[in-house]
């Protein structure tokens, strides 16, 4: 299905894989729940201990499995539970981002955000924004046949 036709299909919901670190962004997602910050049911959260654990391999695999977007999230810089894991995430992400861009995947499909455990509303807004952006783009060109 091309992006254009997809956009026309009513009710198509993207599927977003969100990697969250245990200490901040996963907590941020929890806070979104506690604050009842409503968001589209598009994200599937995968918890890791530190954003530094998010391997580009996982990101690639998510795309190949059919993710319409992949989110890399972690603690704000300076707040890492493991001293500086997120500093490394930042460097690695920049590198991954360049590779994904050269591969020809739209930049909206891979995003990085630092979200603290208290920023529930920010988390919800992030998911809403990404969902809107992806709805405009349509399904990922890497999505395998017959998968949803």
């Amino acid at each position, binding site marked *: 299905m091309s992006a254009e036709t997809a956009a026309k299909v009513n009710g198509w919901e993207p599927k977003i894989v969100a990697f969250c670190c245990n200490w901040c962004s996963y907590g941020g997602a929890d806070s979104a729940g506690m604050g009842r910050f409503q968001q589209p049911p598009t994200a599937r959260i995968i918890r890791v201990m530190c954003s530094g654990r998010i*391997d*580009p*391999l996982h990101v*690639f*695999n998510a795309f*190949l*499995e059919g993710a319409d977007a992949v989110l890399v999230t972690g603690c704000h810089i300076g707040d890492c539970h493991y001293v*500086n894991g997120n*500093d*490394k995430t930042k*460097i*690695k992400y*920049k*590198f*991954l981002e*360049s*590779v994904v861009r*050269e*591969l*020809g*995947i739209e930049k909206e499909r891979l995003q990085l955000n630092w979200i603290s455990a208290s920023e529930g509303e920010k988390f919800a807004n992030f998911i809403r924004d990404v969902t809107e952006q992806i709805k405009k783009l349509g399904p990922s*060109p*890497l*999505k*395998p*046949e017959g998968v949803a």
Partner: protein
Amino acid sequence: MQKGEMLIGWSTKEDVRKRGGSGGLVTSVLAAALEKKLVDAVVVLRKINEFEAVPIITSDVNEVLNSAGSLHSVPSNFAKLIADRNLKIALPAKGCDVRAIIEQSKRNAINPDNTFIIGLNCGGSMHPVTTREMLDVLYKIKPEDVQGEEIEKGKLIFETKDGKEHAITIDELEEKGYGRRENCRYCMLKIPNNADLACGNWGVTGDLVGKATFVEINSEKGAKLLQNAIDAGYVQIQKPDEKGIATRAKIKGAMEGLGKKWKEKVFVPLDNRLEYFRKELEHCIDCGACKTVCPTCSCGDISKCTEFHSRADPYRMSMYHLVRFLHLADSCIGCGQCSDVCPADIQLARLYRRFANPVQEELKYEPGIDLRKPPYFEAKLEV
């Protein structure tokens, strides 16, 4: 003798001078290093014919002395051959060999202190199968009749056994799809200043043309290597003239200019990159040769690119290639070995460079040049 010094030298052994190109200096330096126990072993190409030679590691001085001669149609890379050998070793190396050795050193697979690298100026190499076809189609000579080849003034010259020379400009050859391997065309490292010595015929002037080698000393190890050969009586040297130094720089500049043009020609911007990569890779048969041969990869048989790739996955692109793209975006040195060995003729080097060119430029990281710069993917923090 010290770092930065430029010299002109030749072998003192007449048979080596005769057999080897440019005065046989490199051969003699290697032989001297072995004989005087500066190293335990050296890498040489055991020549089979003009279009085939096998790289071997040897401790036999005679094997070294008999190995002389440059072969443009033997596009090998020595880095993986010497990796994890734990030997004190000396070897001749094209720019891409040197870059690969440096990358392997960064990954702890080669001990740079025990590796003496004699860099060879390189304008490019050719695939032997292409060369044979080219001889047949363009030069109209039988490959078996060839007894020597030379690149001079932009021409590729073959000498046949009857003593005749057959020359065609490289431009013309490459226009017709022959000539140098594609990655060599856009390679920008013509004089390997990342090696301990940089040797070549560029800059040799006057009577010495064809009979001597121009050497630039790039490191203390290089100085040691050359001094050893002189002390052992294998090599004689003299100072180059200003004109020679200028000529060498001019040739380098011209070659780099040409490289740049090729780069622009090969890497035209694409509209649908994802579709392009997908199409290019659809004939992949998962042989893994591109990884096995990759001289910057220090992984064993098991690595992330292979372990998380399964032939059972119905993906539109393979995990193997995506992980390779990532790992090569910072580490690809553009040696073209992957393209050479791909059974589906996928121009892998071209694909890897599609990532490496912009990424390496953006991150200001050039692999294989500076030993002190860790692979970018290591994400070393600047504290």
